[in-house]
C-alpha cells in the first residue's frame, strides 16, 4: 500500500509541476471568472447609461387600414396602448418602404398594420428569440373581435368584461424532476466530464507512453506492483482533475456571488449554480467512476504503443467510445425524454452509464434499484478494467514495435491471469 501512495504522490506532484496543466487551468478559471464578472461590472459601471436608455421609451407605429374597423378604432387604440405599456404607440399612416427604413434605422421598433378585424401585418427588423409582440396582439385582436361579436349579440359591456376576464388558476405538483433546470446540470456535468476525460485522460496516456518509450517502465514494473502503479496514476489524475474543476468552478462561483445582481435576469446561469445536494453527490460519484474507467482505458491503450507518435492511433478508439455515449446522452436530454430504451440500456453499460444514468437521475425519476444496479456495474467494471489495465501495462514491456492487435492483447491478458 505504501507503494500506492508513493506512486500517487509522485504522479500528483507531476501534475502540479506540469506547467501546461497549471497554466491552462488558471487561464480557463480566469476566462470563466471574467465571463461572469464583466457583464455584472458593465451593468454597474454603465448603470446610469442604461437608465437613460430606459427613459427613452421605444416607439412603435400602428395604423388601421381596414375600413370595417373605423367605427371602433378609438376603443382599439386604447387597448393597444394598454397592451404595450413599454412602448410609445404612435398612430401613423405609413407605407412599407418608409417603415422599413425607420425600423432598420432603429427609430421605430416595430409597426402594426391592422388589415382586418382578425388579421394584421407585423413589421419588425429581426424576430428575436423572446419576441412576444405577435402573441400579445393576437390575444388583443381576439378579445376585441370576441367583444365586438358579443356587443352585436346584445350583451352589455359589463357582462362582456365579466366573461372576458374569466381567470383560470393552476397549480403544478411536481412528482419528478424539473427537466428544464436539470437539463443544464446534466449538460454542464457531461461537458465537464468530457473536458476532463479528454484532457487528463490524454495526460495519463501520455505519461504511460513516455514511461514506455523512455523504458522507465522497465524499472517501474520491477519496483512496484502494476496494480498500485495503475491505480496510483489514475487516482492522482482524478484528484488533479478535481482540483482543476474546483479551481475553475470555485472561481466561477465566487465571481457569480460577487456579481449576482448582474445576473438576476439570467435564469440559466443562476440555475447552474443552484444545484440540489443529492444531485451533486451523484454527479461526484459518476464523475469519479467515469473518469477512472476511461483513464484506465487510456493508460492500457498507451501501454501498447512504443512511441508517443503512435499514441493517437490507440487512444482514438477510446475517445470514440466516449463520444458515442456522449452523443446518445445529448440526444436524449435534448429530446426531453431520457427514459427511452436506448438511454435505459446505456445507463447500465459502464462505458456510457456515467453520462446516461446521471442524465436520467437528474431529468427523470429512476427506480432506486436501477440506480444501484448501474452504480454497482460501474464500480465492478471500473475495478476489473483497472486490474486489466495494470496487466496490460505490465505486459506492455514486451510489446515493442508495431501496435499489437486486440487478439494479441487478449492473449497476453490470459497469460498473465
Amino acid at each position, binding site marked *: 500500500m*505504501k507503494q500506492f501512495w508513493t*506512486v500517487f504522490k*509522485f504522479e500528483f506532484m507531476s501534475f502540479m509541476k506540469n506547467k501546461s496543466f497549471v497554466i491552462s487551468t488558471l487561464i480557463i478559471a480566469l476566462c470563466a471568472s471574467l465571463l461572469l464578472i464583466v457583464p455584472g461590472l458593465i451593468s454597474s459601471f454603465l448603470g446610469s447609461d442604461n437608465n437613460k436608455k430606459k427613459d427613452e421609451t421605444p416607439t412603435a407605429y400602428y395604423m388601421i387600414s381596414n375600413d370595417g374597423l373605423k367605427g371602433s378604432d378609438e376603443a382599439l387604440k386604447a387597448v393597444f396602448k394598454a397592451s404595450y405599456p413599454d412602448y410609445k404607440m404612435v398612430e401613423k399612416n405609413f407605407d412599407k418602404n418608409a417603415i422599413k427604413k425607420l425600423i432598420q434605422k432603429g427609430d421605430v421598433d416595430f409597426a402594426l398594420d391592422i388589415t382586418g378585424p382578425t388579421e394584421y401585418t407585423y413589421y419588425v427588423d429581426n424576430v428575436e428569440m423572446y419576441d412576444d409582440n405577435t402573441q400579445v396582439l393576437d390575444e388583443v385582436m381576439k378579445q376585441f373581435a370576441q367583444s365586438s361579436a358579443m356587443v352585436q349579440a346584445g350583451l352589455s359591456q359589463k357582462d362582456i368584461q365579466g366573461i372576458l376576464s374569466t381567470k383560470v388558476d393552476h397549480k403544478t405538483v411536481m412528482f419528478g424532476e424539473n427537466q428544464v433546470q436539470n437539463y443544464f446540470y446534466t449538460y454542464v456535468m457531461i461537458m465537464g466530464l468530457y473536458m476532463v476525460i479528454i484532457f487528463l485522460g490524454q495526460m495519463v496516456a501520455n505519461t504511460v507512453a*513516455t514511461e514506455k518509450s*523512455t523504458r*522507465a517502465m*522497465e524499472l517501474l514494473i*520491477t519496483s512496484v506492483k502494476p496494480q498500485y502503479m495503475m491505480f496510483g496514476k489514475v487516482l492522482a489524475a482524478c484528484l488533479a482533475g478535481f482540483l482543476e474543476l474546483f479551481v475553475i468552478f470555485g472561481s466561477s462561483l465566487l465571481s457569480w456571488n460577487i456579481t449576482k445582481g448582474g445576473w438576476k435576469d439570467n435564469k440559466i446561469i443562476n440555475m447552474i449554480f443552484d444545484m440540489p445536494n443529492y444531485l451533486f453527490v451523484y454527479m461526484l460519484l459518476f464523475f469519479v467512476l467515469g473518469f477512472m474507467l476511461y483513464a484506465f482505458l487510456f493508460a492500457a491503450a498507451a501501454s501498447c504503443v512504443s512511441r508517443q507518435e503512435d499514441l493517437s492511433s490507440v487512444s482514438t478508439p477510446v475517445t470514440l467510445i466516449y463520444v458515442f455515449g456522449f452523443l446518445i446522452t445529448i440526444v436524449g436530454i435534448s429530446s426531453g425524454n431520457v427514459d427511452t430504451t436506448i438511454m435505459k440500456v446505456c445507463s447500465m453499460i459502464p462505458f456510457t452509464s456515467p453520462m446516461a444514468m446521471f442524465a436520467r437521475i437528474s431529468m427523470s425519476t429512476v427506480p432506486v434499484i436501477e440506480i444501484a444496479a448501474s452504480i454497482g456495474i460501474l464500480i465492478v467494471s471500473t475495478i476489473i478494467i483497472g486490474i486489466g489495465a495494470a496487466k496490460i501495462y505490465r*505486459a506492455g*514491456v514486451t510489446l515493442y514495435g508495431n501496435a499489437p492487435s486486440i487478439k494479441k492483447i487478449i492473449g497476453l491478458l490470459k497469460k498473465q491471469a
Partner: protein
Amino acid sequence: MILEVRDLRKSFGTKEVLKGITFSAESGEALGLLGRNGAGKTTTIRIILDVFKGNSGEILIDGKPINYDEITYGYLPEERGLYPKKKIIDQLVYFAELKGMSGKNARKAADQWLERLEMSEYRNKKPQELSKGNQQKIQLISAVIHNPDVLILDEPFSGLDPVNALMLQKVVQEEITKGKIVLFSSHQMNYIEEFCNNIIVMRDGEVSVGGRIDDIKDSYPKDRLVIRSMDSDKILEEYGDTASKQADGSIFISIPSEEQRFAMMAEITQKYSIDSISVWRPSLLDIFVEYAGDDEAKGETK
C-alpha cells in the same frame, strides 16, 4: 546467499526463446552473462526480475522459491529508463521510495550518491539536459541507492569515458565486496574479466558453457605455445609448419601432445633468446566466439 536458476524455459508465441537455462550465483561474486544479441540474456533477466513468468523452471534463493517481497534487487537496464523531464533528485527519491525506503532516507541516500559520483550540481536538472555518461551515473545510482541484495547490471559501462568508467567500476566492485549477488551482462570482455569469476555463455536460449572463467580456460587443450622473441625468424624456420606468426608479432607453436609442453619450453628457451614464453590460454573473447557464435564462426576459430 545463492541465487539459482533451474531449467528456465520461455516461449513467445511459437518462438522458444529460452530452452532450459540453468546457473547459479553467489553472494560476493559477480556472474557474467555472455551471449550475442538475441541469445536470451534480457529475457532471462526479466524473468528473474519477475517482469514476466517463465513457462517452466524455477528461481531459487538459498534453495527456496524466490519471494519478491523479501528479496530486494537493483536493476540497471540496457535500455536506459529515466523520465527525461523530471528532476533527477525527484526521480531518484521516487525509485528509492518504491523500493521501500522512507522519503527522508531516500533523499539522504540520493544526495550522498550524487556527491560521491560528482553529480551534485545536476541534482535539480533533468536527465534530458545531461550527457549520456552522466545519465548513466544517475541510472546506476537508481539501481544501488536502496542497497539491494541482488544487483543486475545490463551493459553498465557502455558510453562512458575512461574516467567515468573507472568511477563506476569502483562502485560495482564495492557492491560485490559488500556481499551482493551481482549479475553482469556486457559485450565488453575486459569488464567481465575484471569483475566476474564465473560466467555463463548463452546461445539460442541455451547455456553453451558456464562456470569459473579459470576452469573454462583450463579446459582448453594446452597444445600451443605463445612466444615473443628477437629470434622469431629462426624459430619459424626451425619449427616449420607447426609454427605461425601472429599479427601482434608473437609466434604460435603447436605441440604434438600436452605432456611435451614443459620440455618444449625448456628446449626453446635454451636455444633462443626469449622475451616471453607460455602455454596458450584462450582469452574470454576466444571463449565467447567459440561458445556464443554460430557454427560457422566456431569453425573459423578452430
